[in-house]
């Protein structure tokens, strides 16, 4: 019993941390950079993507024995497009302001490589429950990545966080951060931070005289 709980937990954490779609796999970059001008946009985009990811992975996993191998990609895309249409109409009904802010990028979730990648690499081979757990982990990892970008860009570029002013009126916003170049810069900086951190961990490991050193 404990064996299964551990493996479920690992299934879940794979997407959240070890194989984080934004920082480790660098997949699905278009929405990551385009919608992260503010924390709230980032959060809603992450939740929308996570929903599509979990639903479509669950359905694909249920149907995995029925889908002929030759047309599997087309089938996955149609399933994903169905759920994206659902999300699209739900967001439109809940908040029109949010719908306008995210624009075409809600519909562009269809071509997000993470979802198709997960469907092909994982959901098509595993039973529904682990597939959905893994998808949920990936979705949360994706949301964390979006938030990390969205918050930094909103703080630097507008001086606010989730719409709340942080620095008072004296703050001169760093406008370029909410413009397109800022997206590239902030993501690049995050990747640098992670690379440097990884490097330090390896060096520490080597200094302790521990086994194989990565080249």
């Amino acid at each position, binding site marked *: 019993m404990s064996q299964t709980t551990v493996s479920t937990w690992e299934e879940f954490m794979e997407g959240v941390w070890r194989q984080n779609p934004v920082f480790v796999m*660098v*997949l699905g*970059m*278009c*929405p990551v*950079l*385009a919608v992260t001008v503010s924390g709230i946009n980032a959060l809603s985009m992450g939740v929308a993507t996570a929903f599509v990811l979990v639903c479509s992975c669950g359905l694909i996993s249920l149907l995995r024995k029925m889908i002929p191998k030759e047309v599997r990609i*087309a089938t996955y*895309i*149609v399933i994903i*497009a*169905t759920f*994206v*249409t659902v999300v*699209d*109409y739900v967001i439109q009904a809940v908040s029109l302001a949010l719908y306008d802010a995210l*624009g*075409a990028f809600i*519909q*562009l979730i*269809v*071509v*997000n*490589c993470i979802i*198709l990648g997960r469907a092909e690499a994982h959901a098509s081979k595993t039973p529904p429950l682990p597939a959905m757990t893994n998808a949920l982990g990936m979705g949360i990892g994706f949301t964390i990545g979006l938030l990390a970008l969205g918050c930094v860009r909103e703080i630097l570029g507008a001086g606010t966080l989730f719409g709340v002013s942080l620095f008072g009126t004296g703050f001169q916003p760093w406008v*370029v951060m909410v*413009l*397109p*170049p*800022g*997206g*590239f*810069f902030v*993501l*690049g*900086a995050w*990747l*640098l931070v992670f*690379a*440097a951190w990884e*490097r330090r961990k390896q060096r520490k490991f080597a200094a302790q005289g521990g086994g194989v050193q990565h080249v």
Partner: protein
Amino acid sequence: MSESVAQIFINALLANNFVLAMFLGLCPFLGVSGKLDTAFPMGVATTFVMLVASLCAYGLNVLLTTFQLEFLRLISYIVIIASAVQLVEMVLKKYSPALFRALGIYLPLITTNCAVLGVALFQTAREYDFLQSLTFAIGGGAGFTLALVLMASVRERLQLSAVPSVAQGTALSLMLAGILSLAFMGFAGLGG
């Protein structure tokens, strides 16, 4: 819709460049931009798919609106794009096998290039007429090719320079893209 055709073209090519200002099609932008030899054919192939997809999407949208089936728009666009890619693949295989081999796996991946779906979605959202859609697709494709070629040229030069080993790889490419994007912001307002 008072935008002239020339304005749409300039906007899609420079001021609102698909890759550097609208963040569409970043996967091939970061993935295929290592070498100039593959970057240019990739750009041309994508432009062609965009053109075909845009034309089909325009006709399809008219059809869907007539029958009030707008909720099927996304699904039918995706199917159309996938078929267009298949078509390009078959044509290339027949008439230019060398290019077909050079592009390899990236050819079918055009299906999941958000720039292609982006063209179809944006032309619908902005209610472009037939000629405007056509211009938008060509301009967007040319802009995509331009960004890809620029990036590939910079990265080829960069292989000869000493870069701190921590910064190598995607982080460096992103910083480069940021600088390119900054340069393209100079075109803002050009299309009126």
